[in-house]
């Protein structure tokens, strides 16, 4: 008898860019660039506000990961559900949330999405079926099982997009949930936004297989690994997964490999990686990449960022002008 590993080696999926460009069209992709610029500007402003001591709490920036947010959200339809993770400003904005209400929440104001009770890590927009970012690594993954069951029992053609990081893929909650979703054929997309570090733990040290996407085979579901800095690749994979889910073909595990340019949170000295590595990934800027793909000229690119920054300044002004929660309301919202 000979025993060997049964892990299936997988390639990183290469999409047909030309087909996707034609299908999506330049107008829509220009909007993607705008939205990605808005996400980056939001987070750069968040960092700036924090550096100037104007933010009370912490934050987790997804700068460099914008292609995952825009590619995935663009593949979904109105009425679909979103569960995402603590590095979630991008997903929330890409999902169509109001930048003013997001900034107000970030600054802890009563006008924010969660009335200043949630903050950066817990922004939800229940009206748009955005069931919230989650401060617990893998915290949203078991919830996706219930959302998937609910969709199946109601018989609607909705899909639940569940986004989590590479760190979450090593929790027990991930295993329990993907197993349950697979045996019940639930309409859930498990999108692993692999930014390569679980705080300081590099993914190469955290898993023995090559790609997290390979784990799909353990659950008998479809799985794919894509370049997470390629918005079109993420879109292609998530859209295909959404179609499968809508057609009753069950869950899909999509892994998008990307990179976080900034530290884990405000206190990270980044001793676990080199400046060269960060620079290498900054050269693969997902926003610039999409702009180049649609042959956007530099002047327009800069103009888009200027507009995005102006929008963010307006959001900050809105948030600054908004009232703090009144202490007399402190007990509200614990029970329904």
């Amino acid at each position, binding site marked *: 008898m000979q025993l060997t590993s049964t892990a299936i080696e997988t390639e990183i999926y290469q999409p047909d860019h030309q087909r996707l460009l034609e299908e999506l069209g330049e107008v829509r992709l220009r909007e993607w660039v705008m939205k990605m610029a808005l996400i980056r500007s939001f987070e750069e402003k968040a960092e700036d506000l924090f550096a100037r001591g104007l933010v009370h709490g912490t934050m987790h920036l997804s700068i460099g990961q914008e292609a995952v947010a825009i590619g995935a959200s663009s593949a979904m339809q109105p009425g679909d*559900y979103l569960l995402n993770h603590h590095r979630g400003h991008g997903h929330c904005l890409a999902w169509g949330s109001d930048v003013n209400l997001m900034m107000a929440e970030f600054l802890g104001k009563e006008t*924010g*999405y*969660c*009335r*200043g*009770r*949630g903050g950066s890590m*817990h922004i*939800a927009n*229940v*009206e748009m079926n955005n*069931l*919230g970012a*989650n*401060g*617990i690594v893998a*915290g949203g*993954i*078991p*919830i*996706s*099982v*219930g*959302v*998937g*069951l*609910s*969709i199946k*029992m*109601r018989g609607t053609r909705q899909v*639940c997009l569940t986004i989590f990081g590479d760190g979450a893929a090593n929790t*027990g*909650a991930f295993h*329990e*949930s993907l*197993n*349950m979703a697979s*045996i019940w054929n639930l309409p859930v997309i498990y999108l692993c936004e692999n930014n390569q570090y679980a705080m300081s733990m590099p993914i190469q040290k955290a898993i023995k297989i090559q790609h997290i996407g390979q784990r799909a085979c353990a659950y008998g579901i479809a799985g794919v690994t894509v370049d997470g800095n390629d918005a079109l690749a993420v879109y292609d994979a998530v859209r295909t997964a959404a179609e499968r889910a809508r057609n009753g073909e069950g869950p899909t595990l999509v892994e998008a490999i990307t990179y976080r340019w900034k530290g884990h949170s405000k206190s990270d000295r980044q001793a676990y990686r080199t400046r060269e590595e960060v620079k290498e990934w900054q050269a693969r800027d997902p926003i610039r990449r999409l702009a180049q793909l649609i042959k956007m000229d530099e002047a327009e690119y800069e103009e888009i960022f200027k507009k995005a920054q102006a929008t963010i300044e307006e959001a900050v002004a809105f948030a600054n002008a908004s009232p703090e929660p009144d202490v007399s309301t402190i007990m*509200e*919202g*614990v*029970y*329904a």
Partner: protein
Amino acid sequence: MREITYVEAIREALFQKMSEDKTVFIIGEDVGIYGGAFGATAGLIQQFGEERVIDTPISEAGIAGACIGAALTGFRPVGEIQFMDFVTLSMEQLVLQAAKIRFMFGGKAKVPFVLRMPGGSGTGAAAQHSESLENWFVHVPGLKVVMPSTPYDAKGLLIASIEDDNPVIFVEHKLLYKVKGPVPEEMYRVPLSKSNVVRQGKDLTIVATSIMVQRALQAAEQLAKEGIDVEIIDPRTLRPLDDEPILESVVKTGKVLIVHEAVKMGGFGGEIAARIAESTAFDYLEAPIRRLGGLDIPIPYNRKLEYHAVPQVENIVEEARNLVALRV
């Protein structure tokens, strides 16, 4: 009135709610053909099919998460954790998700589900199948904690819990499952957060939860023969707690004994004692507040050791007798 057992009362509540409300479904380990480890869901899969009586893999975090996700999107799930001990594996979902979602989202979402679980010792199941962990949940704002002590309350509280818009931890007791009592056939609700004066008396107040209410009642019968008149209060809902009847009773009797099966250290009795001490009822106390709880040990396997690990009728009788005899 018709008499049925505690577990039959639970089954009837589930059956009646599921018949009435299509958004109610059951999810848990072996809840289908097996009927639940203690038979609480027996026959329901034949009535409602496997789409509404869902057998799960051994995935307690997954069961809790499934309840939360379905509750967030329009359902009223009733999850079952086979033994309360196993809820340790669901804690993240219950404490960090279910309890906090509504508050974190600024009151803009609700999470209406019930998670049923049998606690308690007395079955020889040893340390990992006999725990009474209710006070862990009592410490968590956003959760409700319900502990029925009779078949009547089990049915009425379960129906009220399913209809409640919040996550409810519903703690049953294994030794109560076979206890019979009067239960109306029609649907009725026992309101949450309403303490029940189970027995009226003037000499001593006993505050007891779950099976300890039954033991306190037996103790009260013995004590009555000695001329000691005991008042017994069952909070029924531990969180949010209705403490008024307890405080009123202490004002009346001047003496109080708190009894629960859970380990005394850090147990629910401490909260009751503190509330009495902090209130004007304190001025009426004629003796120190006394507590009876589980010993500071895991539940042992040996029958004799297990028996002595938690309060029994004779312990309550003795403690009550001493308390009544005390003059401060």
